[in-house]
């Protein structure tokens, strides 16, 4: 086809876009409609290469396809979706034909395009609506429906989509907001808030919902944005979002606007909505509205069903609770006629529900005030509560039951009292238990009151909270009640309280005080003197703290026994022994002195017979003296009055002295000394000597057939040891530990007894103990015994170098 001059007006008049290019793509013709369709003016494109247009309206690939066809002598036609100069997508139906010269050479292409965008969109819309109906009808779930809606709209119809509904309170609530790019939802939300008032999507939605009419903003230019956006940030967001076009369509169901769906396009798709789009969107919105409404109704129905089920379950549970309750639950009307009677009531009262229902409530409480029901009703009507009211009921068998009753009003929907429910619990067992407990408490009280020991209980503040009569009497009150009424300070201040040795105790040192501090001590002996009378009393006190779970002292129990009588007896005994030994020693002193005078006299006369008798006498007097001394020592040890008088002395000298003193008392034995202990010791010289004398006299006594006694002495840096060895009877292993007991006496094989009180070794061991020393024995029966004693060499004795210490004189 050849283009002639006269063709021109025709071409311009055609309502189709006509574009002619040569084989290189250089545009040679671009009619008016082409200007309209593609956006470029004839002037802009004439002489330019068609492939240089941006955005491209023809790709090289498509051009090759077209040329191939045309070369074959065929024509080409097809649909293209391209962008026009403004970037808007358009659909075109193109028919391409070849232009040939007179010789029939292929020299150019004529391209005639129809705008089929609307038709394409209609198609798309129909397709979409079909799909949408299918999708929206696929679920009754509200959330799913919403999701489906959004998925349908974005990105097919819009770049973002917002669905808003009217809440129950009339406010607009956004149900969903979706965007092709999830990360832009944030901006979309912000934009909704900050968009200029007249363009504000929010206010537009509001308006749409109010009027029920759709709104279309086909093209929003940046100019409008600049003008109308007061806020820089909002403007920035707006520009960032690149808003192009907005449609807001009401969601109408049964002539009632339920909300709105907003379609928004941005530079993502560059799509511009027109009134066809609006029509389609309205069509879509209708379907969406129904789908949403259906979903909403479905949800509501679901919720109602659920709630009803819940309520039913609750009622069932309640009924089960009432039925299974151990308590007797009875309902009655305001006249007292029983309407319900649970299993608990059946059990408690013995009547079946069918026997009880319809009877007057008072049939189970004939013993009570017959007007009790009226009284209860009256109280309830006044709004008062009746809880845990203890009363009695009579069961079917006629037995009286103790019950605790709680009575509550039964109200209807209008809060009017229409009946009364009564919950009764059997407390007969509880009462019985309480009575038993009381009984056992009473028994305990009787026991506590009748024991001879005084018992008091103090609370943590030291206040007396319990006392028995014995305690009251010991403390000087006629009975426990008067004692409990007295002030604790007053009670304590009546006495001077001392320990066993007479040392005054202040309040903090008292056993009861210590117990309150949580200290548990063994029993202690306490002496107390009544201040006004001077009367002396003694008690053994045992104070015990009682702790709670958190280890706090909750009270202290004091048990005290009066030992005044015993102490007085002991004191009298001590005094007696002291006086007796003194009284015994006084004549002994005379006898001894006269015997010795007589001995001197006969020695002057050289009367050997008399001297022999006198020597025996002197020995016996000595023995008698020792016995009396031993008795006195034991009584002192027992009374805790055995006092040491320690001094520093030379140990060897003491041993030599004692050997010299004892040697003359035996004719059969020679006392040999082996080793030496030339050290200073700090000890009671008289008492240590007493131990040695005791061991030596024992050695003599229990080795009658032997002729030797050996005294071994040795020292280490820490102690000095003495061993007294005899070659006599010995002690069997089973009796070795017994020899140190008080009053123990060794028996010979033939049961011949040895003289003595059996006190010597006991006293000796006590003396050693008081010196922190030791006394022990090694023995072979029949071969003899060795008694050892050792004394510590104390720092004190090491420090003293001066041996010329003042010592006492021995008898």
């Amino acid at each position: 086809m050849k283009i002639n001059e006269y063709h021109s007006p025709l071409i311009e008049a055609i309502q189709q876009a006509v574009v002619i290019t040569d084989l290189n793509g250089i545009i040679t013709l671009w009619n008016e409609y082409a200007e309209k369709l593609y956006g470029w003016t004839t002037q802009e494109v004439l002489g330019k290469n068609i492939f240089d247009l941006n955005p491209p309206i023809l790709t090289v690939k498509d051009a090759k396809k077209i040329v191939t066809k045309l070369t074959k002598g065929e024509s080409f036609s097809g649909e293209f979706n391209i962008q026009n100069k403004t970037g808007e997508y358009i659909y075109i139906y193109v028919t391409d034909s070849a232009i040939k010269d007179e010789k029939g050479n292929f020299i150019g292409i004529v391209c005639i395009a129809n705008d089929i965008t609307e038709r394409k969109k209609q198609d798309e819309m129909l397709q979409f609506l079909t799909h949408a109906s299918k999708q929206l009808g696929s679920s009754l779930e509200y959330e799913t429906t919403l999701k489906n809606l959004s998925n349908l709209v974005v990105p097919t119809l819009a770049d973002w989509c917002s669905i808003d509904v009217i809440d129950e309170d009339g406010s607009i609530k956004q149900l969903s907001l979706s965007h092709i790019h999830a990360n832009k939802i944030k901006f979309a939300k912000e934009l909704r808030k900050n968009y200029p008032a007249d363009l504000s999507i929010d206010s537009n939605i509001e308006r749409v919902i109010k009027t029920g009419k759709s709104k279309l903003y086909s093209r929003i230019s940046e100019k409008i944005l600049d003008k109308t956006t007061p806020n820089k940030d909002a403007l920035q967001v707006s520009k960032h979002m690149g808003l192009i076009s907005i449609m807001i369509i009401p969601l109408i169901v049964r002539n009632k606007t339920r909300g709105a769906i907003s379609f928004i396009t941005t530079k993502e798709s560059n799509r511009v909505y027109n009134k066809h789009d609006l029509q389609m969107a309205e069509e879509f919105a209708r379907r969406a509205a129904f789908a949403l409404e259906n979903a909403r109704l479905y949800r509501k129905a679901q919720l109602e069903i659920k709630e009803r089920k819940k309520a039913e379950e609750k009622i069932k549970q309640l009924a089960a609770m009432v039925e299974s309750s151990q308590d007797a639950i009875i309902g009655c009307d305001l006249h007292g006629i029983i309407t319900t009677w649970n299993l608990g009531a059946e059990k408690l009262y013995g009547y079946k529900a069918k026997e009880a229902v319809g009877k007057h409530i008072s049939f189970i409480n004939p013993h009570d005030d017959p007007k009790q029901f009226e009284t209860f009703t009256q109280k309830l009507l006044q709004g008062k509560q009746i809880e845990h009211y203890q009363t009695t009921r009579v069961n079917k068998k006629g037995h009286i039951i103790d019950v605790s009753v709680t009575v509550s009003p039964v109200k209807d929907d209008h809060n009017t009292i229409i009946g009364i429910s009564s919950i009764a619990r059997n407390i007969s067992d509880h009462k019985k238990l309480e009575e038993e407990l009381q009984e056992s408490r009473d028994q305990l009280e009787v026991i506590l009151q009748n024991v001879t020991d005084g018992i008091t209980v103090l609370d943590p503040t030291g206040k007396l909270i319990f006392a028995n009569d014995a305690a009251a009497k010991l403390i000087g009150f006629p009975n426990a009640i008067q004692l409990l009424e007295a002030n604790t300070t007053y009670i304590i201040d009546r006495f001077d309280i001392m320990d066993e040795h007479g040392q005054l105790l202040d309040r903090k040192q008292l056993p009861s005080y210590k117990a309150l501090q949580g200290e548990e001590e063994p029993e202690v002996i306490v002496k107390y003197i009544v201040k006004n009378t001077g009367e002396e009393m003694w008690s053994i006190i045992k104070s015990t703290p009682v702790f709670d779970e958190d280890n706090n002292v909750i009270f202290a129990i004091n048990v005290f026994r009066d030992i005044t009588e015993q102490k007085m007896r002991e004191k009298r005994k001590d005094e007696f022994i002291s006086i007796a030994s003194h009284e015994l020693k006084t004549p002994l002193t005379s006898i001894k002195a006269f015997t010795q005078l007589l001995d001197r006299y006969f020695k002057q006369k050289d009367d050997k017979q008399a001297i022999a008798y006198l020597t025996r006498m002197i020995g016996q007097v000595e023995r008698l003296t020792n016995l009396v001394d031993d008795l006195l020592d034991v009584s002192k040890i027992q009374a805790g009055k055995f006092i040491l008088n320690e001094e520093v002395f030379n140990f060897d000298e003491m041993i030599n002295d004692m050997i010299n003193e004892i040697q003359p008392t035996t004719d059969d034995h020679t006392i040999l000394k082996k080793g030496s202990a030339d050290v200073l010791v700090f000890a009671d010289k008289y008492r240590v000597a007493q131990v040695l004398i005791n061991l030596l006299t024992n050695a003599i006594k229990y080795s009658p057939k032997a002729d030797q006694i050996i005294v071994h002495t040795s020292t280490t840096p820490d102690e000095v040891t003495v061993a007294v060895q005899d070659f006599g009877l010995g002690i069997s292993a089973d009796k070795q530990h017994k020899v140190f007991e008080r009053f123990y006496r060794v028996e010979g094989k033939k049961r011949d007894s040895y003289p003595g009180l059996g006190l010597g070794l006991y006293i000796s061991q006590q003396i050693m103990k008081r010196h922190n020393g030791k006394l022990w024995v090694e023995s072979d029966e029949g071969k003899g015994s060795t008694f050892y004693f050792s004394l510590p060499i104390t720092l004190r004795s090491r420090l003293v170098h001066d041996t010329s210490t003042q010592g006492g004189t021995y008898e």
Partner: protein
Amino acid sequence: MIPQLKEGHMNKHIWIIDDDPGILEVTQIILEEAGYQVTAINNEEVLNEKLQETLPDLILLDILLSGIEGPEISHRLKTSVQTQHIPIILMSANTSIEEKVQEALADDYIRKPFDIDVLEKIVKKYLKPTITNN
């Protein structure tokens, strides 16, 4: 007995204070035989009377004198200017006597019953024979 010593002791005067006549008697015999002048005193009243008249060279004092205790008398004499120079020896039947000696400010003690040698020895210790005075 050694006669020379007896001579030397004649001028020394010893008071024995005890409530037991038996002890007073035997002690007096022993010490007189040893050559001392001895006065036996059996109660505090007599002691006080004697103190008005003269003073002894040594006192033997029983610790448990009835009425007033020996240590008290000793303490009194030892704290009095007139009598504090007189040696006092306590006598006791008790085995624990040392403490009392200190309390009483006494010079020494002797346990009852005693050996007559020991009595002589302790008295001699405090009454050294003064030949020059003889």
